């Protein structure tokens, strides 16, 4: 399954709904291009909704890290929403779960950007 990405705006936050696999190749490139495009347009509050991301490999993890640091370096903020168990477990074993700001509820995640 290829990776798909769509964006929507909620209270000044750009929510990126991702689905499929974030893996070496197309999946990682879609994520990278989406985040870079948002940042270039000045949309710096980014919430990545990973509810429909069913698989991620080490390249995908690297791309999430890159999205996080790139956003931060450009004065933005990036949070993760609705991790599947697989992605949650991967972020746990790589010790990245505490690096990312991970949310379970969209409304409170949006609110957290604006506090």
């Amino acid at each position, binding site marked *: 399954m290829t990776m798909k990405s769509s964006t929507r705006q909620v209270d000044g936050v750009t929510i990126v709904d991702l689905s499929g696999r974030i893996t070496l*190749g197309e999946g990682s490139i879609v994520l990278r291009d989406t985040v870079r495009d948002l940042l270039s347009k000045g949309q710096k509050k980014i919430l990545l909704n990973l509810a429909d991301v069913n698989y991620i490999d*080490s*390249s995908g*993890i690297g791309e999430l890290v890159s999205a996080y640091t790139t956003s931060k370096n450009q004065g933005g903020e990036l949070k993760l929403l609705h991790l599947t168990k697989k992605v949650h477990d991967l972020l746990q074993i*790589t010790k990245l779960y505490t690096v990312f700001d991970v949310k379970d509820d969209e409304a409170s995640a949006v609110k957290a950007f604006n506090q």
Partner: protein
Amino acid sequence: MSSNRLSYTLDSTLETVNSAEETAGRMAAEAGFDDEEVMKISMAVREAAVNAVLHGNAYDPNKKVMLAFERTDHDLVIVIRDQGKGLDAGKIPDPLAPENLLKTSGRGIFLIRSFMDVVEIHPSRTGTELRMIKHVRPTADSKEAPQ
């Protein structure tokens, strides 16, 4: 004691990575592993294939990746070999070290070690061989197949 062995010679392409992952998932399921273990095994093989194709063979069309699966009574043994310069595992930084946490690469071998029971890396001047073993753990209600 019984043993089944399958081996493939593959091109140094992204398609090889995907096909190695799919084949590993199929072999692991056939060996009787549950869904979570199948995912871990197929992911370990994917990461090993990425190392072989990208870091070992560097997408060189003249270099091949050898992938072999062996199912014994107790183990699923997977060997993946490239024709690169040889990986120096001692030089791979610890991805869990605080200074490396935000690096965008370097987690592949760590994930392989996390997901498999035994991992051996044998580098040489003609390539790297990575040997992974997952022990088959019979479930409480498993029975001997009828003779």
